């Protein structure tokens, strides 16, 4: 098997909390706490977890929009973390990002042509004005918009259309990997389906790889080939989409999946209910982060020792002492 497109190892990100008399660091938020995963070419890896578990931070660390605290990121044979500013700019032609909020992610004072074409100017991808316009029109049509949308401003568009503009902007540099940071969470369900289908079509057309971050399990199952589940900054389970949904191993994954609504009122099923709240990431629990809420935890093992992410079956990784 060839080298994966993106390989992330032991990635951590701590946000310092400042305060006190001399504005010194008094604590830190462990947003991402030792995450390993890889994304193959043309593949979609889903990254799920509840709010605040570090999914988005992980995605931004890959692009170095947020500087990671430690760990390794390799993209296409390049060591991302050691890149200098100019090389980082070149790297960003290969990795792009689509944001959650289509209202906040487009500059309200630039028209669509300028937004979509910005990368063309930054990287000098087109030489003449005519080429520039042709390319922008081409991109707009690729995502299902029209050429005459070029001169309009973002406020003239609906949420779904804005998300398409965001996608066109990401496509302008012909990236190999797109980080989708909850790209459909802010949209209506019918529009969600349109955007998801668009993303799938584009993947097929351009051979894109996606790191698909979401909290909606149904969406992730639909689009992903493999799925990683995060809890409090760590990946607790990673498997192919089918495998994960058919036979989840980690107790947290079980609880998550049992919370997905089934659109049939006659079906009854066993809910796994978790007690308590997600612990504070400023002082996460020792050992396994999940032991405070885990139905199968055994003490003192789970409290003292963090379970490594180990392969329990072919391609099925789980971080639990007992599964």
């Amino acid at each position, binding site marked *: 098997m060839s080298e994966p497109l993106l390989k992330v190892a032991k990635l951590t990100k701590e946000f310092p909390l400042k305060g006190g008399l001399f504005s010194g660091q008094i604590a830190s938020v462990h947003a991402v706490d030792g995450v390993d995963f890889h994304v193959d070419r043309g593949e979609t890896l889903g990254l799920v977890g509840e709010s605040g578990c570090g999914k988005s931070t992980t995605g931004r660390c890959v692009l170095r929009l947020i500087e990671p605290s430690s760990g390794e990121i390799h993209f296409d044979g390049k060591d991302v973390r050691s890149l200098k500013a100019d090389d980082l700019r*070149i790297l960003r032609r290969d990795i792009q990002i689509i944001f959650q909020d289509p209202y906040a992610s*487009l500059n309200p004072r630039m028209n669509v042509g300028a937004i979509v074409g910005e990368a063309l100017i930054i990287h000098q991808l087109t030489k003449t004005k005519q080429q520039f316009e042709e390319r922008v029109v081409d991109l707009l049509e690729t995502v299902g918009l029209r050429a005459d949308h070029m001169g309009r*401003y973002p406020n003239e568009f609906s949420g779904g259309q804005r998300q398409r503009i965001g996608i066109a902007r990401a496509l302008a540099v012909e990236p190999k990997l797109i980080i989708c940071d909850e790209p459909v969470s802010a949209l209506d369900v019918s529009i969600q389906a349109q955007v998801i289908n668009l993303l799938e079509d584009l993947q097929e057309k351009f051979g894109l790889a996606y790191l698909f971050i979401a909290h909606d399990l149904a969406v992730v199952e639909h689009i992903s080939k493999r799925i990683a589940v995060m809890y409090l900054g760590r990946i607790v389970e990673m498997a192919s989409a089918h495998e994960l949904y058919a036979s989840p191993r980690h107790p947290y994954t079980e609880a998550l999946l049992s919370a997905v609504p089934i659109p049939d009122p006659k079906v009854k099923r066993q809910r796994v209910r978790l007690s308590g709240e997600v612990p504070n990431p400023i002082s996460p629990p020792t050992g396994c982060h999940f032991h405070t809420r885990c139905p199968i935890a055994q003490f003192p093992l789970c409290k003292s020792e963090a379970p490594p992410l180990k392969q329990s079956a072919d391609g099925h990784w789980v971080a639990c002492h007992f599964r």
Partner: protein
Amino acid sequence: MAGSTHASPIADVVVPLEGRPRHISPGYEVWRKFRRHRMAVASIGVLTLLTAAVLFGPLIWRIPINEIDFTARLAHPSWDHPFGTDDLGQDLLARMLYGGRISLAVGFAAMAVAIIVGVLIGAISGISRGSVDAALMWITDLFLALPQLPLLLLVIYLFRDFLKNWVGPEGGVFILIVLVIGAFRWMPVARLVRAQFLSLREKEFVEAARALGATTPRLVIRHILPNSLGPVIVAGTIDVAAAIIAESTLSFLGLGFPPDIPTWGRLLFDAKDYLDIAPHWALFAGAAIFLTVLTINFIGDGLRDALDPRRVM
């Protein structure tokens, strides 16, 4: 939800947008929205009138500003002297038309200085983290904490003669006053701009531009600055007013323009001893300052709304 809709998303996206003309230039769009602001449009008319009057008025109303006529001391408005006369019988209309040039010029020039310095300091402070930001904010706080009037007096006392010799009495005082007023008005602008930068810097569209590989200057010029100027425009209009008033104060203290140059502020302060017997003296100069400040504020409001593409009007 996923998989339930199989209609091809690329082929048929319905884009219902009401049939308005397609290529409206951004400049026209701004004017279209500005026009809706009736007070702002009326204000432009009034301000243009005021400006035209002070620019061309002295060419039409040809009574010299220093023609003393003791037979018409403190005369009330009449056909000979539409705005009346002062205690030396000098024609107030002529004096106002001439002084208005200086008052308006000082106001706008001082605003320009305050805004340029404020935006520059605020932008540098807002985009750079750590020590540069801290140092610039210390300087801003320092300026805010300085007692303005004593310092103004000191600066003018120290530099007036030097500038007078260099560019002549009127020009020298003009430059000095504009710089001094500007130097004491930039702090609120800098703080506004910095606050805007701090919040805009974290917005997703700025992050998106960073992800596209935009350099910091590009981020600032194309993305952050244009979105931070709304409050600055409003602050700027207030600065024009404040500068006109500050100039009056300085003139009153004998440190502004020479007493024989009748700026509006000067007229107001000269008139204060005769308020009971010659209210017209203060009235017209006061009304001129009031009208200028008010119209500029309305225009600022209108501009802010018109320049904001999110506001549908």
